[in-house]
């Protein structure tokens, strides 16, 4: 169920009119791996100071999109630009910080040492103390990277991403596998970085993460952009309440004529979205529906994305 929304800047840029001063630009990018089309014509523009969240289920094409932006992969057709340059250009890369999914770091170096090493890759790095401080690594700075926990190691990756004082930050699934508290403190770090006017591209399949951080959310699924707007606007695309209950032997006919969307049946558990939960439930209960375990909750970004990505 593709939904196209409004006039977001990226979707209207065409190949011959690149957005002036855009930090990142993908124009009609296609990417094929053998016979698999990971991206099927994706255009994304990220402007200076913007935090864009790429959201979608696993395998949607988010990581492929970020790889094209960084020049780690090349589009099969279409173009990728970083600061108006070919992404592999060292001038573009020296303005870029990166956190990749599952990339390794030298485990035999201490935190401070690995930060110092990566600082030497950049022309104008931040002072090591500033980097260590902003990544919340103060107390671990003399620990070996190999001895850190997953969450602490993720902070090291963040430190490496910001150590070059980049104008643009690319974060590919930065909080996978982290507990809630660690994720929230990571969000604080990202917000702090954004306050300095940096552009950030973040891929995530955590909706609350996109909701909490992004100025603009791009929903990707099956290699296509399904929606692109502010988190609020995307949330507004679906009816306001999520209703769920248990009803063994339920058939969809029970809801015939009622204002519901996104019906999902999982065993005896029935879930749907509606703007008028009271009316729907009154009608069902009046008809003698054997409902138990009733829940009514506000629909969020999660439901919106489920609807947008066809329930995957």
């Amino acid at each position, binding site marked *: 169920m593709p939904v196209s929304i409004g006039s977001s800047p990226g979707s209207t840029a065409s190949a011959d009119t690149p957005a002036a001063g855009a930090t990142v630009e993908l124009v009609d990018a296609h990417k094929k791996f053998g016979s698999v089309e990971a991206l099927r014509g994706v255009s994304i523009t990220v402007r200076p100071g913007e935090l864009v969240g790429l959201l979608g289920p696993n395998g949607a094409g988010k990581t492929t999109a970020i790889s094209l932006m960084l020049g780690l992969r090349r589009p099969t057709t279409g173009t990728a630009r970083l600061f108006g340059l070919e992404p592999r250009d060292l001038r573009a890369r020296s303005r870029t910080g*990166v956190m990749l999914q599952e990339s*390794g770091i030298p485990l035999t170096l201490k935190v401070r040492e690995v930060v110092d090493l990566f600082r030497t890759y950049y022309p104008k790095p931040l002072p090591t103390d500033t980097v260590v401080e902003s990544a919340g690594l103060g107390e671990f700075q003399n620990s070996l990277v190999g001895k850190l926990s997953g969450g602490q190691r993720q902070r090291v990756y963040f430190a490496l991403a910001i150590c070059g004082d980049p104008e643009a930050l*690319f974060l590919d699934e930065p909080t996978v596998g982290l507990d809630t508290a660690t994720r929230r403190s990571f969000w604080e770090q990202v917000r702090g970085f954004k306050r300095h006017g940096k552009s950030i591209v973040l891929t995530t399949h955590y909706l609350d993460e996109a909701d909490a951080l992004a100025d603009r959310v791009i929903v990707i699924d099956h290699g296509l952009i399904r929606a692109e707007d502010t988190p609020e606007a995307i949330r507004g695309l679906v009816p306001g309440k999520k209703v769920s209950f248990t009803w063994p032997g339920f058939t969809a006919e029970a809801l015939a004529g009622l204002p519901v969307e996104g019906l999902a049946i999982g065993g005896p558990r029935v879930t749907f979205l509606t703007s008028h939960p009271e009316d729907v439930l009154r009608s069902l209960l009046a008809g003698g529906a054997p409902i138990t375990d009733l829940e009514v909750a506000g629909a969020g970004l999660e439901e919106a994305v489920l609807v947008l990505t066809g329930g995957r």
Partner: protein
Amino acid sequence: MIAAQTQAEFRRLFRVWEFTGFGLAFPLILYVFIGLQGSGPGAAAYHKYVLASMCAYAVVNIALSTFGISVANERGTRMDALLRAMPVRPIAPLVGKTIAAVAFALAAILLLFLAGILLAGIAMPSEQWFNLTWRLLLAIIPFICMGFAIGYLTGPSGAVLAVNLILLPMSFASGIFFPINGLPAFIKDIAPFLPMYHLGHLAWNAVGVPYDDLWKSVAWLAGYSVVFLAVTLWAVRREDDRRFT
């Protein structure tokens, strides 16, 4: 940046006891077992000969394991992906690795020298000590190329196996552990085609063993450098096609 990269490599080499133990201690232990035997008139020449052999072995061992195993590990842990997104030319980290490997090899050679002097009472003109050292440090190049090829053609666990499968048989077949005359005939026939055979001859010649084909051996080693470099470039390109296009 290259200085920082070299420093990081050094820290790795000296912090991981597998590297330190394998690179520095293992040749030393081997030397103590096979290098101190013998007395009488032939002993002095024999001691020098074994010392040169062990130094050659130590150098090749470091080139293959430093390059082969660590390159394979970096690919296996996707450390190379992060480096590829950095504003550095891919060659810079390799320069750092090369410098660190050469310096590590020098450390291994000096340790063996010390053992030779203290335990076997080896005495030779300073010219011979010096010749042996610089010849080995220069002739490490083809083996660094070889290690690099192994690192790109295998994975993290395969690299360890490949290095051991290559290093030990090649050392035996090149006359590094036992004089070549004692080897089976078919191995004697293969030996002149092995890079380590030529390294061995450069090393033995440096400590006074007469050898007429010095330049032929240099040419063999240069040829091997070119071949392994070509294999490496091919493997790097293959890797590029698989993971970075």
